[in-house]
């Protein structure tokens, strides 16, 4: 029965109260461990077309008569359009239409960052459109530019009210602490850099707008576009069958979608609006930089008594103030916690969610701080984490938590540090570091799926979700095959089109599998029950092979439908994990090499161990880029992005990959849905930076507290450690470095 409830919905660590209709989820969970199909490694069903270059991405959509749009972007970090003249553009060859500020959603007269969209032109070719954009005549009034986050906080230039929280009595706890450590950590701005840039193709057919878009949320696009353009939702069709990466940056439509829609309307033609790589670097979002001023107090027995944090997120011109303080509140059992989080509004490109926004940055600060505390207390870092193990989420019980099991499995990897130290020499210092992971990833309703079963014993799962490259299409097929007791190759998944299937979850916040999987299983179970009824009528046992039961049906089909049930009420659904990292540091040249990463994650039931290991490896490698080599740089004077190309913005290559050992606790969350699975997209990127930094400290004794740990930062930290050792020696204390 459908039930209307008021519930808290979480996406990317942001909560909102919503009304939703939930359906009961009466199915018993499957037993733990590998089943016939679920829990067994399966190559991706859509891998052949992706590998062979047959998969059609938004970038490959070519509609008859399609025009190309280019966007005029502000060269100034803060400026107002005093006057704009599109006429010179309109006279150029091939140009069909142009729009200025206010004429398409997202094109604005006030440019708050360099790269802000102002106007757009559609032409027969992209080159013509780009030439026309150059010809648009704009008179700018330049305004004051603020790019320094501390200055913005001081002047009250904030995206929202400072977020202040306190539990317990921090000051008293610090006064009574045996040891207090205090450090400032900084993280840099990094770019998503999906290889398929942000883009959409829009076409009007009658009064229906067809939107082909590289997106993580088909239904979010439909809702936002219909609302912005004043269309009924069913007059917007959104298509995304194959998608070339998003990492959080493609959760909504942006100016390129509205530009394409408006120019398509004006020209009566299909219009593509695709960002170039350089626009991707200036105008498509980023993981914002942070400054984290942290303190921790502990008793000599290792009990953490106080955690204090002042966090500044360099949010940019727009975007939101992510929960950088989250790990400090949730990871450890600490009675006294106080945080304040500022979201600095700057004349810099806006942040967007990027794979566990806030928690990646906050975990770097907190887990480095915990290791500094362990060093001061002379307590083993793993032991210190265990001593402060959280038994509940601020009083709310967990739906499941196996972090202790992760720690247990981390032990043999952690033990390798003695052997790693022994392999150090005068130049290459080796060390091992660890960090814990906490993050969301429980998904939630609503999400729906249909299952269609034919007399040939082949089933099709139909749902208008998207597979953004995580392999969820295959996971859905596995779940349906398991429930229908069919071989995996008998199950297809149709997705990627709002006109061809029911509402489906966003693919962000590690939510696709935990949101969609239970709906797919419910739909398959609905179909299976119908098959069992037919079996009974045929005089077969209820559990007779499905293929045998349906073989008589000819053109008849069995149609099953399923919905995602509610999350357990009164419980916190969270993911957990541990990374243990081995590094080698060249103390003369500052080179840091990540040699080995052991990743142990607790995300409930694993549906496809093969695809899951790819998610973990991918998160770790992206995190290594964040930790060691990636940084978006701005010109401090103009606020313009300097690293606009991929030779200057350096992501890891295959040569940078360490040995990666990937383990899953793989215990179904018994309180979470009929599946017991949580999401895995984000957890692997959460702890890696801190684990690397802690390994660097273990190897060298040098405190790195800034990302990226470039040679500059590494050499600085080594020099500082040397000076401290010398001073200690002067004072007569034995050197520790």
């Amino acid at each position, binding site marked *: 029965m459908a039930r209307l409830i008021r519930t808290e919905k979480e996406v990317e660590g942001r909560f909102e109260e919503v009304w939703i209709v939930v359906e009961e989820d009466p199915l018993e969970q499957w037993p733990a461990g590998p089943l016939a199909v679920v829990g067994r490694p399966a190559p991706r069903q859509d891998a052949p077309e992706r590998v*062979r270059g047959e998969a059609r991405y938004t970038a490959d959509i070519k509609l008859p008569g399609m025009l190309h749009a280019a966007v005029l972007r502000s060269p100034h970090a803060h400026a107002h359009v005093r006057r704009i003249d599109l006429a010179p553009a309109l006279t150029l060859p091939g140009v069909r239409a142009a729009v200025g500020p206010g004429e398409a959603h997202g094109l604005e007269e006030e440019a708050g960052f360099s790269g802000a969209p102002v106007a757009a032109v559609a032409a027969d070719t992209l080159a013509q459109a780009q030439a026309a954009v150059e010809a648009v005549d704009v008179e700018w009034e330049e305004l004051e530019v603020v790019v320094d986050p501390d200055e913005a906080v001081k002047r009250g230039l904030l995206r929202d009210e400072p977020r202040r929280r306190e539990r317990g009595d921090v000051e008293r706890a610090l006064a009574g602490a045996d040891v207090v450590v205090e450090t400032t950590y900084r993280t840099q701005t990094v770019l998503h850099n999906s290889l398929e840039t942000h883009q959409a193709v829009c076409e009007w057919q009658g009064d229906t707008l067809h939107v082909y878009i590289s997106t993580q949320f088909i239904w979010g696009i439909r809702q936002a576009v219909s609302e912005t353009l004043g269309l009924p939702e069913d007059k917007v069709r959104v298509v995304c069958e194959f998608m*070339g990466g998003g990492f959080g940056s493609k959760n909504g439509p942006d100016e390129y979608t509205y530009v394409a829609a408006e120019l398509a309307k004006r020209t009566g033609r299909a219009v593509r609006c695709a960002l170039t*790589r350089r626009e991707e670097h200036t105008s498509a979002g980023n993981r914002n930089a942070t400054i984290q001023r942290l303190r921790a107090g502990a008793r000599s027995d290792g009990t953490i008594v106080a955690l204090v944090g002042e966090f500044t997120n360099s949010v940019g011109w727009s975007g939101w103030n992510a929960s950088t303080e989250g790990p400090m509140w949730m990871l450890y059992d600490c009675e006294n916690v106080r945080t304040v989080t500022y979201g600095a509004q700057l004349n810099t490109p806006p942040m967007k969610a990027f794979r566990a926004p806030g928690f990646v940055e906050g975990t770097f600060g907190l887990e480095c701080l915990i290791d500094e505390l362990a060093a001061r207390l002379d307590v083993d870092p793993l032991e210190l984490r265990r001593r402060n193990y959280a038994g509940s989420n601020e009083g709310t019980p967990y739906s499941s938590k196996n972090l202790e099991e992760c720690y247990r499995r981390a032990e043999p990897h952690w033990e390798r540090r003695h052997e790693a130290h022994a392999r150090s020499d005068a130049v290459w210092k080796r060390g091992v570091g660890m960090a814990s992971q906490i993050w969301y990833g429980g998904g939630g309703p609503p999400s729906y799926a249909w299952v269609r079963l034919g007399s040939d014993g082949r089933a099709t799962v139909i749902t208008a979700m998207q597979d953004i490259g995580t392999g969820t299409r295959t996971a859905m097929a596995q779940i349906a095959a398991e429930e229908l007791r069919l071989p995996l190759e008998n199950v297809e998944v149709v997705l990627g089109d709002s006109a061809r299937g029911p509402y489906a979850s966003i693919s962000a916040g590690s939510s696709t599998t935990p949101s969609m999987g239970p709906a797919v299983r419910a739909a398959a179970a609905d179909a299976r029950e119908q098959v069992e009824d037919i079996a009974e009528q045929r005089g077969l046992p209820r559990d007779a092979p499905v293929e045998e039961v349906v073989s008589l049906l000819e053109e008849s089909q069995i149609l099953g439908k399923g919905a995602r049930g509610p999350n357990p009420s009164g419980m916190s659904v969270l993911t957990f994990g541990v990374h243990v990292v081995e590094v080698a540091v060249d103390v003369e040249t500052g080179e840091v090499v990540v040699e080995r990463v052991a990743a142990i994650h607790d995300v409930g039931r694993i549906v496809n161990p093969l695809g899951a290991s790819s998610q973990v490896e991918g998160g770790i490698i992206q995190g290594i880029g964040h930790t060691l080599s990636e940084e978006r740089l701005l010109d401090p004077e103009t606020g313009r992005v300097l690293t606009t190309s991929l030779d200057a913005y350096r992501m890891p290559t*295959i040569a940078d990959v360490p040995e990666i050992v990937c383990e899953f606790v793989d215990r179904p969350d018994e309180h979470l849905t009929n599946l017991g699975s949580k999401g895995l997209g984000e957890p692997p990127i959460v702890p890696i930076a801190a684990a690397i930094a802690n390994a660097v400290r273990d190897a060298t004794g040098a405190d790195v507290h800034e990302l990226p740990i470039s040679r500059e930062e590494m050499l600085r930290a080594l020099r500082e450690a040397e000076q401290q050792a010398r001073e200690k020696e002067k004072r007569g204390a034995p050197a520790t470095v």
Partner: protein
Amino acid sequence: MSELRLTINGGEHVLDVPVGTSLADVLREELELTGTKIACNEGHCGACTVQVDGVPRLSCITLAHTVEGEVTTIEGLREHPLVEAFVRADAVQCGFCTPGQVVSAAALVAARPEPTRDEIRHAMAGNICRCGTYPKIEEAILTWQD
């Protein structure tokens, strides 16, 4: 416009495109061979990799009129055993870089049928995968003959 003669995947093509047009644009826009992807369009990422006479090149910064020799794109490598090896090893996530990876890998294994890990890492370093599929790509190339 200027005449352009190309041999692509064994077929002859005669086209008329402006001097300055990139090979990638010719493949994708003129010939609709969209397996070759453009991700940076300035020679930095490897998504557009094609072979010319068996040698991997970046089609996005190759002027089409300067191409001498036979062009092989992913469409010409669809039956290569590497395709099955990539599928088996799960060496594909979003898949946007994958055709370029296969084109580079095919040139590598043609020259060295049993490459070492170090050789793979040296030869494949110009193909950026933002999803971080690298361990599985390495695995696929190590096991391509299985």
